[in-house]
């Protein structure tokens, strides 16, 4: 864990304050980071099937002397931009575009960086009509076959299957004030209580902060944000993210692809191993 003076577990914020920070309207979004990490970034578009999803930015840039594929959920800053980016909620075209470019990266040996920042996949009729469930399912399965290193970072909201569809990686790290959850607090409240106004209670039950996920063994590291939060210092937030991403990617670059894929499989296959260790869970694999 990075310790720049202050440790991320030393927080005085409530769970709901963390949720609000993760969704802060001035928080740096994927392109804010990508343009700072790789100033020569070239955006690539389209799933080559039917469309381009503006909720996912993707492209190549030089990072630490190496061509790297960057993929990230993209939210908008102004109202017009937010609408155009669909609040960072991907349609099926987005997951298909991500897979196309993941295979593209593997073809040329580019490592992949995924930045996760989405409330979830788009919960609308059009997404359903064009097969959002199968698009996410296929993406999750295919990520396990991409023969180059992948490091994912949750930079804001990691919402549900929409986030996991971009979150199968060799290492997953989280910014300090980001969240990652089975469902947004509003959706969980709506499912459990049929009342989405009980979002604060739901957030507290869900254990969705970066510290909770680190404790559960779901992510490798929590990256300490600049004092007060990433929204106060874009350059500082990029520096700590850059350092952590690079540190995690470095050892992966030397690994043979078969070994990389085997470890990626095991990372998720035994991700609940802390629970396996509990006596109630029954015998380990026979």
């Amino acid at each position, binding site marked *: 864990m990075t310790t720049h003076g202050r440790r991320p577990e030393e927080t005085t914020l409530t769970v709901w304050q963390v949720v609000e920070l993760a969704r802060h309207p001035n928080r740096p979004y994927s392109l804010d980071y990508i343009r700072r990490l790789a100033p020569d970034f070239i955006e690539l578009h389209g799933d080559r099937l039917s469309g381009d999803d503006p909720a996912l930015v993707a492209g190549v840039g030089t990072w630490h002397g190496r061509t790297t594929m960057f993929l990230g959920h993209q939210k908008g800053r102004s109202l017009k931009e937010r609408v155009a980016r669909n609040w960072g909620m991907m349609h099926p075209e987005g997951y298909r575009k991500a897979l196309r470019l993941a295979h593209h990266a593997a073809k040329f040996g580019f490592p992949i960086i995924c930045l996760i920042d989405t409330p979830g996949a788009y*919960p609308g009729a059009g997404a359903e009509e064009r097969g959002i*469930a199968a698009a996410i399912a296929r993406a999750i399965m295919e990520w396990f076959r991409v023969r180059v290193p992948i490091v994912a970072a949750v930079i804001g909201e990691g919402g549900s299957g929409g986030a996991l569809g971009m979150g199968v990686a060799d290492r997953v790290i989280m910014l300090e004030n980001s969240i990652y959850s089975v*469902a947004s607090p509003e959706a969980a409240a709506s499912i459990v209580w049929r009342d989405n106004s009980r979002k604060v209670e739901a957030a507290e039950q869900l254990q969705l902060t970066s510290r909770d996920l680190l404790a559960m063994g779901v992510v490798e590291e929590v990256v300490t944000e600049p004092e007060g939060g990433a929204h106060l210092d874009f350059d500082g937030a990029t520096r700590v993210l850059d350092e952590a991403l690079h540190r995690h990617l470095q050892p992966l670059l030397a690994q043979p692809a078969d070994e990389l894929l085997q470890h990626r499989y095991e990372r998720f296959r035994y991700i609940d191993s802390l629970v396996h260790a509990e006596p109630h869970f029954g015998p380990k694999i026979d």
Partner: protein
Amino acid sequence: MLNPRAHAELPIAGGKLPPIPLPTNCPGCGVGLDVDVLRKRTYVCDCGHHFRIGADAWIALIADRGSWKERWGDVRSHDLLNWKVPKPYQATIDQLAEEGLNEAVRTGTCTLGGRAIWLAVFDFRFVGGTLSIVAGERLARGMEQAAASGLPYVLVSASGGARMQEGVLALMQMAKVNAAVGRLDAARVPFFSVLTDPTFGGTAASLALLADVNIAEPGAAIGFTGPRVIKQATYADLPAGFQSAEFQLARGQVDMVVSRTELRLLVAHLLEMYP
């Protein structure tokens, strides 16, 4: 599509289906129900209405009588997030266990028309058939063993998605299970998925729609986001039949919509064609 004579000797169910709670009249056609007749027809009304059945009934339906060998039934869930409201999670799962239900997914081996298969069935009665750590573990172990042994894998899904009360670890089951689907696929082991009412969320967006042949039951609701949430989020008016099995067939997500009364014959026939 099917050659009915090829499996004319095969009964529509492997064994006797257990009784299920039924209304007095069919919600599909309004006709009064004869429980014994319905049970012999695998709980499908003459009008085509398919009643939801649990894991025990699915096992009795698919498996040849006496061939079912359950695996990992002793793997149990527990309350890892200390979930308290509206009801303690531990109390919920303890009560369901007392009612004789064993988690949202049961898995094991059996034969169908004499062919050995792996079978996994969801049970919607157990917290809405939600994908939990135990469910994911049983699914992944079964798929890994099917991939290693070459036995075809048959899945019957009925699920609301990932289980909220297990938090992000429930979400991670989608990745765990799909990694195993990838192994099954790479081993070129046939995978047949039967999607029943309802199949949504993290189950639809993980293994249920990734089979080599996707088979849906008539009228089953299948999708990612449920209609209530879509209406809340987008104020959209959803047309009748939105997310039905027939809707998914028209949009290319399932290979066929097949009545439960023909399912066993169909799967037996598929098992012959995909050695």
